[in-house]
């Protein structure tokens, strides 16, 4: 197959996947419903544990960095919740298509719907966790402004990036099972390299360490408006560029390996 044909069939697959929204939305909601079923508070457990983490680490790190809490805690809480949402999707993707193999080996369905189902699941968890952000911003931070609204369209932009990245990782980890661990370790390393715990200012004249990191820009796209200032032009450029690169990559992967995935399961 030529490169052109591969990309085209990959894009077609992506489109079919995205437009089958009834399927992935319903399945994701169903997944969350089942989580509620056997425990009274269901996904709120995640919120509680994230909330406790944010509070504890927030106090600890603001002392270590010697910054005041009103300044540090909102920064950390927002970054940490967004990170949880992003890394959750990546670690779901690292599991590959294996959890859906029964279905994939039986009927032909657009493959992106399985990835989207997992993505939506994490988005519902984020919805639960956003209460932490709301509490911290209202009681400790500066509250919400009109700029905060910008977080919502930006969040969608980042979600697109994450979905495309998830597709690439899922296909990759289905082919090479031992990559699951590598991806998980990689995610952890990225966490420490990205300004979530620490602020960019602490880098002093080495800010390029953050500037060269796309994940920093992704987080900034949502974190900045929530903290009351606009994302920089750089953040938008990086996000747009990663969207283009990931679209091409995901289309290539889907076009090239779509028909092989059933063989790998």
């Amino acid at each position, binding site marked *: 197959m030529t490169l052109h044909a591969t990309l085209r069939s990959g894009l077609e697959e992506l489109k079919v996947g995205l437009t089958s929204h*009834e399927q992935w939305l319903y399945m994701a909601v169903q997944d969350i419903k089942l989580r509620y079923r056997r425990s009274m508070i269901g996904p709120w457990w995640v919120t509680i544990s994230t909330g406790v983490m944010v509070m504890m680490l927030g106090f600890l790190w603001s002392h270590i960095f010697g910054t005041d809490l009103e300044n540090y805690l909102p920064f950390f809480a927002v970054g940490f919740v967004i990170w949880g949402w992003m890394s959750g999707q990546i670690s779901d993707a690292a599991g590959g298509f294996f959890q859906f193999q*029964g279905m994939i080996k*039986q*009927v*032909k369905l657009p493959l992106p719907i399985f990835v989207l189902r997992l993505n939506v699941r994490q988005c519902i968890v984020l919805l639960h966790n956003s209460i932490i952000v709301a509490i911290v911003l209202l009681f400790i931070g500066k509250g919400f402004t009109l700029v905060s609204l910008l977080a919502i369209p930006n969040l969608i932009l980042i979600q697109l990036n994450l979905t495309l990245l998830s597709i690439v990782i899922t296909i990759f980890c289905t082919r090479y099972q031992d990559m699951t661990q590598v991806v998980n370790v990689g995610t952890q390393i990225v966490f420490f390299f990205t300004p979530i715990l620490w602020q960019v200012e602490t880098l002093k004249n080495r800010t390029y360490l953050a500037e060269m990191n796309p994940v920093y820009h992704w987080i900034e796209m949502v974190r900045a408006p929530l903290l009351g200032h606009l994302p920089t032009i750089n953040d938008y450029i990086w996000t747009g560029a990663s969207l283009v690169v990931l679209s091409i990559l995901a289309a290539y992967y889907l076009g090239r390996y779509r*028909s092989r995935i059933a*063989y790998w399961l």
Partner: protein
Amino acid sequence: MAHIKLDQASVEIPIYSNHNRSIKNSLLKNFTKDKVLPHSVKALNNITLDLKDGDRLGVMGPNGAGKSTLLRTLAGVYHPTSGSIDVSGSIASLIDISLGMDGEATGYENIRMRAIMMGIKLKQIKTIEEEIAEFTELGKFLELPIRTYSTGMHMRLGFAVSTTVPADIILMDEWLSVGDSDFLIKAEKRLHDFIQKSSILVLASHSEDLISKLTNQTLRLEHQT
């Protein structure tokens, strides 16, 4: 107009051991002398098929001859490694009727999940639910998680959902045996109706009887010698 065309289609299934599944080995493969052992099974070899409306194909052959692989290829799951495939028409796959069932979810939820995965719109689902509830006679049980069901009840539900929406092409692996004798008669009737509405049937079975009763042509698969 539904049709199935296979032209010289072969399916070769790779066997991934831990050895060649790891990325290190697949990178090193180009540099080391010892070539990886042949790691694939030829499940189908040069199959040519041409099925049109009204065709009822029986597929026979010993275990491991490739009957299920053929069905999966027709379903679009395995893309032939060589040769070509062209299928048009909606497909109902009765290879595994309890596909995608979730033990924690209730009977109704499972009906909805399956229906949605089969591409049915949310609006139509209500009528399907009622029809299935009536056919399966599961009544109040449909509100319970299906892990509480007996095997027979499980089968009833899976069977009813699988046969609820008419399709152009039906792929079946063995005749279904569902439940007790009363229900069996009902199920047989439903299945016959379901097949009647389709335009192409492909049935894999070991039973000569069944094949001669239901199909008008037979494909015999053999082990490669």
